[in-house]
């Protein structure tokens, strides 16, 4: 398990993610990763978008032989065979095996089913409490149930899954050996799935991506395995994180919004976009932004970034750029206008964005509708956080009503 943070007399409590200060958007400036590697930190909305969409900056070169060290202990994001670390035509080849399953319409077809899963989880939560741990009852369960169903992983042991995914996104929680060991095991699991579904295809996502890859060719077995593992982790961890942190925000800061989210599904949908924009996924000290490397000289926001330089595109800061969004406490029910950069931009724009939105929207709406008087059972300062990972969210969240 991750090293949970137990606030004690000598450790100051960690503050919720939405209370973290973001970097003021401005021209690109120099900063450093935890490894000491120098990076250009890019913070304005337009500049972050450019970094993520401009082919003169990419992901694969972050792992070239001459690349500087990015992580103290490499994790799943550093896998060179992954979708995220491929670029250009190769990236397109891999992405096309799954893209169709994730378009807004394709995801919309899952709504009745996701809705029924949320209903069940909320009913169980109500029956079990109060008080109840909302993480165990809902924020972890929902994304795991959804991705398991999509990929037909129903038999998968949830503890094993949590073990793999905590290692996959570990920053400091585990040693390099522990991470490598867990990733070997996870990779073997992923590969076995690929082999099995090729032999006995069903109507699940793994079967369809294996078929698509085998039909078009050009995607290696390693890339397929990496994609399957990536989907398992990306498909639940960030959604769980966002849902948990959104509950902290709403139940601590904005009880009126909570009731409105429960009363009106459209309001829940608008609030989901605003919450995704407002709440960071993790601490900037761990990872200051989405990383890219310049493959040639490129000018960003009036600054020349030389070939070979590493760039951190800070979506959190860009999501608060006063040129694009109103300053101060957000109106959760106002339309966003310009899309936020929470799901990135450019070729690597989050594959699962619509799925994540749907889970968040339905999870928040249905919980708030059933329990409009929901509140945190403990003060915010006593929240136990999942720590040492790239993302940060409550380990447990005691709620009452």
């Amino acid at each position, binding site marked *: 398990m991750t090293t949970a943070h137990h606030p004690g007399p000598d450790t100051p409590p960690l503050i919720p993610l939405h209370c973290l200060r973001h970097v003021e958007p401005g021209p690109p400036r120099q900063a450093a990763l935890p490894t000491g590697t120098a990076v250009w930190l890019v913070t304005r909305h337009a500049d972050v978008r450019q970094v993520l969409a*401009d082919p003169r900056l990419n992901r694969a070169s972050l792992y070239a032989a001459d690349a500087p060290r990015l992580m103290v202990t490499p994790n799943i994001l550093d896998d060179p065979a992954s979708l995220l670390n491929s670029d250009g035509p190769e990236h*397109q080849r891999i992405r*096309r095996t799954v893209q169709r399953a994730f378009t807004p319409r394709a995801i919309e077809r899952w709504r009745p089913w996701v809705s029924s899963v949320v209903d069940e989880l909320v009913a169980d939560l109500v029956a079990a409490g109060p008080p109840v741990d909302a993480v165990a009852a809902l924020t972890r369960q929902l994304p795991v149930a959804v991705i398991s169903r999509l990929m037909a992983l129903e038999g998968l042991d949830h503890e094993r899954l949590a073990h793999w995914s905590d290692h996959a996104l570990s920053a400091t929680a585990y040693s390099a050996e522990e991470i490598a060991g867990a990733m070997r095991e996870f990779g073997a699991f992923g590969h076995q799935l690929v082999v099995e579904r090729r032999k006995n295809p069903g109507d699940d996502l793994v079967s369809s991506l294996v078929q698509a890859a085998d039909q078009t060719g050009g995607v290696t077995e390693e890339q397929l395995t990496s994609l399957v593992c990536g989907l398992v982790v990306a498909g639940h961890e960030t959604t769980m994180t966002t849902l948990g942190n959104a509950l902290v925000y709403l139940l601590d800061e904005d009880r009126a919004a909570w009731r409105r989210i429960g009363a009106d599904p459209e309001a829940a949908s608008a609030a989901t976009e605003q919450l995704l924009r407002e709440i960071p996924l993790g601490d900037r000290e761990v990872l200051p932004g989405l990383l890219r490397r310049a493959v040639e000289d490129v000018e960003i926001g009036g600054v020349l970034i030389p070939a070979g330089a590493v760039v951190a595109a800070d979506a959190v800061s860009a999501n608060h750029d006063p040129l694009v969004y109103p300053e101060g406490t957000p109106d959760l029910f106002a339309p966003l206008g310009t899309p936020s950069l929470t799901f990135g931009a450019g070729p690597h724009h989050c594959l699962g964005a619509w799925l994540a939105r749907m889970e968040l929207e339905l999870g928040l709406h249905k919980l708030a509708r059933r329990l409009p008087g929901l509140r945190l059972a403990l003060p915010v300062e006593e929240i136990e956080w999942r720590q040492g990972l790239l993302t940060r969210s409550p380990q447990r969240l005691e709620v009452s009503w």
Partner: protein
Amino acid sequence: MTAAGPGAGGEVRVEVDRIRCVGTGLCAATAPDALELGADGRARALRAIAADSEELTEAAEMCPVEAISVRSAATGEQVAPRW
């Protein structure tokens, strides 16, 4: 499938919603004859009116934010994305 359906060779009007577009470049890679990714990281139609093609339909259906619409030039009926 109507006369203006995918691959029918009819003339279509291609539009990209440049506010929605997140610049994945998937469309330009799929239908390079009809769409390109501009220097500003947003897609645009190479010509307002194009010959309909399988690639164009696929590009519109593949767009992760449904920013592309392909309509029959004659009737205005949406040809893609369509499910």
